[in-house]
């Protein structure tokens, strides 16, 4: 219909993608965004509310929404679901005690209809910390294989601190989204 086709047209022209970053507090969402943007990561306060960054990535323009993960503000995540092309779920791989919470919040999120078409990238962050769980262990604990038939997803180990793995993850996400929404290229 009218509005939707206008939005599509604009998006296509500017090659825009809307990426939503979510995950429990202390998982490293803001650090990841600042790191891929080449900014200082030594002073980052826990996110009160949200941050938006526009990042040029290959020929695309990524609108990255980094939303705070504290328990009190998780209920506001849903305000950012609209028109999300790619979803990034960030996990603190060394916080073993809260992996149950992490799984519950993730699966709760994935029930959301407005996110049904979004590709899912799971970042198993903090791989630089000794004793962090490996990506395949995180995948098992989070029960990711239940999505095999319903969604494009991938888990990538990374360290926002060193930057390792971040580009691998975003490469996959951007390619996957692009192959879906800019199929004509």
């Amino acid at each position, binding site marked *: 219909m009218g509005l939707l086709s206008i*939005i599509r047209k604009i998006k296509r022209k500017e090659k825009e993608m809307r990426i939503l970053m979510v995950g429990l507090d202390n998982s490293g969402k803001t650090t990841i965004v600042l790191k891929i943007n080449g900014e200082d990561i*030594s002073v980052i*306060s826990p996110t009160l509310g949200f941050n938006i960054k*526009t*990042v040029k990535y290959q020929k695309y323009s990524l609108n990255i929404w980094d939303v705070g993960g504290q328990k009190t503000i998780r209920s506001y995540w*849903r305000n950012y679901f609209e*028109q999300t092309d790619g979803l990034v779920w960030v996990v603190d791989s*060394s916080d073993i005690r809260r992996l149950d919470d992490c799984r519950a919040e993730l699966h709760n999120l994935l029930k959301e209809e407005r996110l049904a078409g979004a590709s899912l990238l799971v970042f198993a962050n903090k791989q630089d910390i000794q004793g962090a769980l490996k990506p395949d262990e995180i995948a098992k604990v989070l029960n990711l294989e239940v999505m095999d038939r319903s969604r494009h997803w991938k888990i990538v180990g990374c360290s926002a601190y060193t930057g390792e793995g971040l580009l691998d993850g975003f490469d996959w996400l951007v390619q996957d989204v692009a192959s879906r929404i800019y199929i004509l290229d």
Partner: protein
Amino acid sequence: MEPETDQPKTGGGGGHRKHLAMLERLSKRSSASSSNAGAGAGAGAGTSPVDAFLARFAGAKLAAESALSACRASSPEDAAASLAAAGAAIDDIDRLVAEASHALPPYELRAALAAAADLRAAHRAAAAELRPKKSFSFRNKSRAPKNPPQDPATALPPQPPPPPELPNPSLDPILPGLGFRGRSGATLVKDLRRVSNGKDGDFTLADLVSCEVYLKGKCRALYIHRLRGCRVFVGAVLGSVLIEDVEGCTFVMAAHQIRIHEARATDFYLRVRSRPIIEDCSGVRFAPHALSYEGIEEDLRESGLEEETGNWANVDDFKWLRAVQSPNWCLVPEEERLQAVDISEAREQGDDT
């Protein structure tokens, strides 16, 4: 990848940003008007947005409650349909609250969220009662209705096995990392400089009662859970500290980030590069870092914590997002503050982790 236009919450991002914001508003409005065809009139002229919300919320709550009571009264055949209807009614409430969340004062918001959570719980209870076996599977449909279960011996086999739901993988087999756990009345000392890779790993303090904890050296992350009446002294954390559920404790530590959840009557002596946050806390107090031991300057410097930022007093309370001071925290009055604590003499006793 290069930075382009940052778009912080303030800042005039120009036409592009306005354009996006407008599209978003438009799309929100179009979806909102289709989803609340019934209750849409609530935001009418004359009433404040809060009153309008409360009216719509009351209506939606009533609808959900009556749908729930219909569930309980329904026969097993209709159970699925009535449960789905009740679930949809509760979803409506969630949506209503989410839409209004920006405009609502904290009390109304919390009350609304609590009511929604109660309904959700009631719905789960009703669901558990009405469909004890709900495993989804492909099976020959003609089989079930054909044998009226008279004889228990033949009736039982065709029943599907109870289970279902996704088995949640257990965390038990995962070996815990370094830490002190489940101790009472002990003095616990660890010098991470003497642990190979200690500085590259995380450390955990969990389920401690009336303990004194001395942690010298550096680590990458610190997790603290369920401490009662403990005194905790920590060298330098090059990364974040996550503290949950502590009561009647004193913490002295330096770190890049500090998050404090569910703390009661506890004092924090901090040096922190970013703003510390509290959530669901009461009676917590803050003061500047006050710790020394041989070599602490080096540990702090190597962790980027040599500088006193003054952030120990810049606390954000997620349960009090207003300009006036939160009632949940305050500063420790100067005359009550700990004098610099020297833990050089604390030695490891050999039994730990």
